[in-house]
């Protein structure tokens, strides 16, 4: 018996030994350490959404709220709308219908049609259609008024609330609500020749957590440019998204894209796609998300860090220099015409005491001028300056073009004569082509070294632009232009073939309250200033976004119709709030930057004797 026990013990020991030295099938929970601490707190909670139905205390406020109800995240739109509607009306709501941005004309008209029931009539102008990517496309509807019915409802607490019993036929969002519940965000796409970034305006719902906004912007970038801009810019491969969020807030943003991101079919040889992608992301996320650069992961590899270096600032041609004090205080050089001659204005840097640029000093250049465009750009061979001067001789107009590289001015050349001619515009990056309106048509020109005059070549405009072209101006990136035709404003996306040809690729009208627009210029890379007739029938200068959804009067003048308007585009990185604009009308010229808008006689430098203010015309900036 004892021997058996011993044998059993031995067998057990062997069994334990053989099985005991392997990896156990189950183990106890082993504590390793404390869990990670929560990182940087996300600022605030969820962003502000539109007001709820119950929050209105008057029927006017209710209607205003109702026209804001659809603001916010697209996937919550339907639920919010239904909250404003009676169940019967809610059932009729169609999911996925377009969200129309409308500008209210006047206040809503209430007509009591029964006990606690009103019919509401609103007069509107359709501005555009807001899509899920935050882009406002061209308006599809032209209806000018809507009628819907609201009713009073008493809550259990006894308070009075309103409800929509019969909604308008379309989904409507007022421009006021757009401004209140969305933040404009500019994202960028490379131009088709990949030389500069082209801005694309979007609207970010304030409802979206701030921490998720960078992710949303990357999604927008991958999804592609706005519909109207699409033909004029390069796209990112739409498979580039790898479903990674962009962690935010974080000192260094980390953007992760799939391997498809570097497969960009329209990228020509010699283009560093990753570097361009990085700059595109940097510019698109620049404000307010990028703090200390951005790290780009493509397919989890090749992390490249992008910071706000010179390459970054050079990527967007609209930007002149790094942000900072110097840039804030920089003033454009201002000029004006007196008796057909160009003079500096006092508002220029250094009080305007410097001589005129060298290229204007040649014999016979600075005379008979009715409007001038002066631009400057750094090129490979040095600082290039170009002047496009419209001159009038014997009631005929022609274009005089002078260019200079450094101090070496080339001889002035002129075009043939036209019966009318508007102000010319230089297209930048590279600055070798100009546009001018002549005989109500749009023409392009380029300075050629060969002997003879400068030919004007007609630029074909889309057939949708009817009427006579009266003004043209170029965006600082040189890839978009704005034209005025038939009193309306259009923005065109252009491509630059070779070095000297321009082709219109994309077009959209810019709806605006201003009618009979006579002049347009770019006050920012994505904003225009227009001069025309205001809603009160008086001359007006307004600043508008490219989609026309956001507009702001800059100056109301009772003097007379504006003849000429120029703007100095703000740097995209500058925190400027007011547009730098100059214009003239019969008898006076104005500089909206100063305290006193009117340009005084003393402001004109280098003039002989007393200056007649009525002779001071066509002020302009040196665009650099």
């Amino acid at each position, binding site marked *: 018996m004892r*021997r*058996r026990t011993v*044998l*059993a013990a031995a*067998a057990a020991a*062997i069994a334990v*030994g*053989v099985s*005991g*030295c*392997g*990896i*156990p*099938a*189950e*183990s*106890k*929970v*082993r*504590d*390793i*350490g*404390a*869990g*990670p*601490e*929560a*990182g*940087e*707190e*996300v600022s605030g*909670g*969820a962003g502000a959404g539109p007001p709820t139905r119950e929050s209105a205390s008057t029927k006017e406020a209710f209607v205003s709220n109702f026209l804001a109800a659809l603001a916010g995240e697209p*996937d919550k739109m339907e639920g919010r709308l239904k909250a404003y509607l009676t169940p019967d009306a809610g059932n009729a709501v169609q999911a996925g219908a377009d969200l129309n941005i409308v500008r209210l004309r006047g206040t809503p008209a209430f007509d009591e049609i029964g006990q606690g029931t009103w019919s509401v009539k609103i007069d509107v102008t359709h501005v555009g259609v807001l899509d899920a990517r935050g882009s406002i496309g061209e308006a599809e509807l032209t209806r000018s008024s809507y009628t819907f019915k609201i009713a009073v409802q008493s809550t259990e607490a006894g308070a009075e609330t309103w409800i929509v019993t019969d909604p308008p036929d379309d989904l409507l969002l007022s421009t006021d609500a757009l401004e209140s519940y969305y933040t404009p965000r500019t994202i960028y796409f490379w131009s088709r020749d990949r030389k500069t970034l082209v801005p694309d305006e979007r609207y970010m719902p304030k409802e979206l*957590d*701030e*921490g*998720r*906004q*960078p*992710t949303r912007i990357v999604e927008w970038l991958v999804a592609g440019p706005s519909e109207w801009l699409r033909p004029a810019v390069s796209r990112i491969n739409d498979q580039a998204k*790898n*479903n*990674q*969020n*962009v*962690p*935010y*807030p*974080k000192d260094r943003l*980390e953007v992760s894209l799939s391997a498809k991101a570097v497969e960009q079919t329209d990228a020509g040889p010699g283009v560093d796609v990753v570097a361009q992608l990085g700059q595109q992301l940097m510019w698109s996320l620049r404000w307010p998300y990028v703090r200390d650069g951005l790290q780009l992961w493509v397919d989890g590899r090749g992390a490249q860090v992008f910071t706000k270096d010179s390459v970054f600032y050079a990527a967007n041609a609209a930007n002149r220099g790094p942000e900072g004090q110097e840039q804030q205080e920089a003033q454009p050089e201002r000029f004006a015409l007196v008796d057909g001659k160009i003079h500096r204005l006092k508002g220029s840097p250094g009080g305007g005491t410097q001589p005129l640029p060298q290229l204007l000093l040649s014999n016979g250049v600075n005379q008979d001028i009715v409007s001038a465009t002066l631009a400057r750009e750094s090129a490979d061979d040095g600082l290039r300056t170009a002047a496009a001067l419209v001159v009038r001789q014997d009631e005929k107009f022609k274009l005089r073009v002078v260019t200079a590289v450094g101090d070496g001015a080339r001889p002035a050349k002129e075009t043939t004569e036209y019966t009318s001619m508007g102000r010319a515009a230089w297209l930048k990056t590279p600055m070798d082509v100009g546009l001018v309106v002549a005989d109500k048509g749009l023409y392009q020109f380029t300075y050629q070294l060969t002997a003879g005059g400068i030919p004007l070549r007609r630029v074909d405009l889309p057939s949708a632009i009817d009427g006579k072209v009266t003004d043209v101006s170029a965006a600082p990136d040189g890839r978009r232009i704005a034209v005025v035709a038939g009193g309306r404003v259009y923005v065109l996306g252009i491509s630059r073939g070779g070095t000297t040809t321009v082709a219109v690729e994309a077009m959209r009208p810019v709806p605006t309250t201003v009618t009979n627009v006579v002049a347009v210029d770019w006050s920012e890379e994505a904003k225009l200033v227009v001069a025309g007739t205001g809603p009160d029938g008086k001359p007006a200068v307004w600043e508008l976004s490219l989609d026309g959804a956001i507009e702001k009067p800059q100056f109301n003048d009772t003097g007379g119709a504006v003849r000429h308007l120029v703007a100095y585009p703000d740097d995209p990185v500058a925190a400027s709030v007011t547009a730098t604009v100059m214009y003239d009308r019969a008898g006076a010229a104005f500089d909206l930057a100063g305290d006193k808008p009117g340009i005084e006689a003393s402001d004109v430098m280098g003039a002989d004797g007393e200056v007649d203010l009525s002779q001071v015309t066509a002020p302009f900036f040196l665009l650099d």
Partner: protein
Amino acid sequence: MAVDSRSVTALGARVLEAALDVWRRVARRAVIVAGPLHHTWRRSLHFRVVAITLVTSSLLVGAFAYLVATQSTNILLDRTRNAAVKQLQVDTDHAAEQLRGFNQAFDPQVQSSLGTIASYLSRGGPEQGGAIVALTSSRNPNLRAQAFDVSPLITPELAHTVAVDHRVADQIRTYDFGSGPTKYLVTGSPVPTGFGPIELYYIVPLTTEDQTAGQIRTMVLLTGAALVILLGVLSALVTRLVVRPVRVAARTAQRLSAGLLDQRMAVHGEDDLALLAASFNQMATNLQRQIVRLEEMSRLQRRFTSDVSHELRTPLTTVRMAADLIFAERDEFDPAVARAAELLQAELDRFEGLLTDLLEISRFDAGFAMLDAEPTDLVPVVRRVVDRLDGVSARAGVPVELTVPETPVIAEVDPRRVERILRNLVGNAVEHSEGRTVSVALGADDAAVAVTVRDHGIGLRPGEEKLVFNRFWRADPSRARQTGGTGLGLSISLEDARLHGGWLEAWGAPGQGAQFRLTLPVRAGDRLTSSPLRLVPPDVVPGHAVDARPASLEVTA
């Protein structure tokens, strides 16, 4: 989980039962094997050394193997654990970053983000043998993301440690995802997010580690087993080296003791064993020389006795004839001379008897004694002996009782020698019975016949049972040889009994007389195992029985 544990319990019970069954069978077999083993254990030094070596080395190697296997497994496991913790940290950071933007758990994009994170972090699934990453939310059970349903791998204890205690913890679990049970290392960590904590589990299969551990175990076991076997073989060889000469020495010694005096051991080399063999051989040589010398001396002595006896016969015959003549004429002599003639006659008779006995003894010593066995009825033989000694007993006043079976007792014996033995025994009894009765009994069974002769004289002192058969031995040396007897009678009787393959034994006790027993096999050449009659007489007073053992077994051997 309940189903699991139940099935595990059932499985455990089955395994236990099977193990018990095997154990019972092994134990039974072990008992069968152990008997002979035990015998071998006691008999074989070789076996013992090998067995001890095997057991000791098995224990040592087993302990070492256990240490090596455990340590290597621990190292493997630690490495995997550290790697998992590092990876978990990276994954947790990633998940925390990815989820940083969310503030509300009910945001539908939280769920999709969780799914994206889980699938991004997972490296294949159980089928591919890659790590699995699962995200759960203890606060929000609907919020979870996992490529596979890994909930059976996450125990409530682990979930509690991670989610409630906010600790990083791991646990090893075994689960079958369809491709056989696999061990998994489940490492969990809480992930801080803006919408409340969630947990991230990094689940890495231990397939490779398990295989490696198994390989190490197998290797260590095989190496250990090989080592043990090697040690066993080595010890067997070494022991054999020592034991073989010892066995040879034992065998040689056995042969020597059996009389083969010229057996010697082979001497190889100069080591201790060679010394043993040489010494053994030396001893054997010395013994042989001594024995041969003693044999020679003994032979010479016997020859001398025989020759002396022969040589004495012829003069004795002459002396006898002269003495007979003088004895016949004694009446005419002076009475003193006549008395001398009578004495001469009597001493000559004694001398003649002595010479006869000496010749007989020397024949036995020389090995010339031959058994002339024939089937004989022993009853008349016994009767004849008693009758012949009738005169002597009557003269001594000793009654002789004779007990014989009614039927003839036939045995293959030499009647002349048997008669001589019995005459000697009965004569001795009558001589020492001091007037008391002498009993003679004959007994027989299938294998043996026996005759006992009992007297009630002074008996024998302890130890004298053997001495009585010595040549010329007397119980009381001071006692004169009045009653004749040459002192060789019992010696010759013993030799006669031995020649038959029989026994002649004596018993005696002081004051209780003595009894002699002759036992002979019924068939000549048979081996005796028992006697039909008892050596110790039944009338012995028990307290006085000094030694009841058959003292003369050795004599008969």
